[in-house]
């Protein structure tokens, strides 16, 4: 027993060292030019990207940051790749088992707005905002890389026929989009704020609406 216990401890110790090693050497220089997307609940402002002098690289970096909002569960859960919305931070299939229906607003007798109101119902924990509905299937974000999301967003056949200016406006002011930052009971808000997200999208477009390279992933 003693031998096995010692071996186990050695193995655990090795695993711990290897595990810590994954963080990389302390004091390593940050990658040049392109800032890695931030993490957590914060969202960088466009001014944080001013050190990137190349407009194309800056635009791509701005989008990478903004994509943290769009690929957050509060946003992508209602941009599913299938016919059912997702819910929760783990993206479980919506329960009750609802489906999008012909116009992305549910089916007769079980519309989205059969339950979802124009605001959150806190006591019942039912999320709500004006115009609650699913994004059309062509606008699926779930499972997209940053680049795929970016190219999709610029494609009028997959963005609801919007111009880039209309996308910025939608991002900045749409109230259903805004729900992502006031999601109600027990739900983690999308990073930053709607204003900060809108500013990133605006700056991305002004710098040329360039998409990040495929290898930049979350």
């Amino acid at each position, binding site marked *: 027993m003693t031998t096995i216990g010692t071996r186990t401890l050695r193995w655990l110790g090795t695993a711990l060292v290897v595990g810590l090693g994954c963080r990389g050497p302390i004091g390593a220089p940050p990658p040049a030019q392109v800032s890695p997307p931030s993490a957590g609940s914060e969202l960088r402002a466009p001014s944080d990207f001013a050190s990137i002098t190349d407009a194309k690289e800056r635009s791509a970096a701005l989008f990478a940051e903004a994509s943290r909002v769009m690929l957050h569960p509060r946003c992508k859960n209602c941009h599913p790749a299938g016919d059912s919305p997702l819910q929760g931070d783990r993206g479980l299939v919506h*329960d009750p088992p609802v489906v999008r229906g012909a116009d992305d607003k549910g089916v007769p*007798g079980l519309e989205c707005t059969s339950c979802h109101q124009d605001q959150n119902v806190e006591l019942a924990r039912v999320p709500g905002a004006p115009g609650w509905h699913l994004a059309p299937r062509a606008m699926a974000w779930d499972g997209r890389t940053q680049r795929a999301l970016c190219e999709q967003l610029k494609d009028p056949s997959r963005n609801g026929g919007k111009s880039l200016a209309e996308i910025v406006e939608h991002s900045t002011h749409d109230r259903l989009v805004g729900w992502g930052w006031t999601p109600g009971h027990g739900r983690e808000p999308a990073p930053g704020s709607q204003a900060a997200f809108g500013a990133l999208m605006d700056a991305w477009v002004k710098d040329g609406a360039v998409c990040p390279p495929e290898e930049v992933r979350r």
Partner: protein
Amino acid sequence: MSVRVRINGKDHVLDVDPEMPILWAIRDVLGLTGTKYGCGQALCGACVVHLDGEAVRSCVTPIRRAEGKSITTIEGLSADGSHPLQRAWVELGVPQCGFCQSGQIMTAAALLAKKPKPSVAEIDQSLAGNLCRCGTYLRIRAAVQKAAGGE
């Protein structure tokens, strides 16, 4: 604040908190107790009523949403229980404990109003959010099919 609303064809001015769920306005204020309180979280469907013909879960729908609109409850679905769904419900002996049935029927009525001849899959999709703890789902489906003119 008062809310103007038509309920089962009759106009009412309700002196209630506009955030009061429709369920409590119809049950506690008007005494229409056919609509049931199940989960209170829009998860079970026992409280379904029609708001301008759309199925809504009255336990989470504030009465202000019904301002100037028309609500139909199970009591208003027909004057004498003769709605095809109600007749099918009786003929097939659908209810067991019966608690969920007004919500089931109101959901199915909203479906048939928009899709008079639904497929089995469409019936299942529309009623997927109505729970029956007695497990009468097969009878419910059969009754909806019967009301739609099928076997």
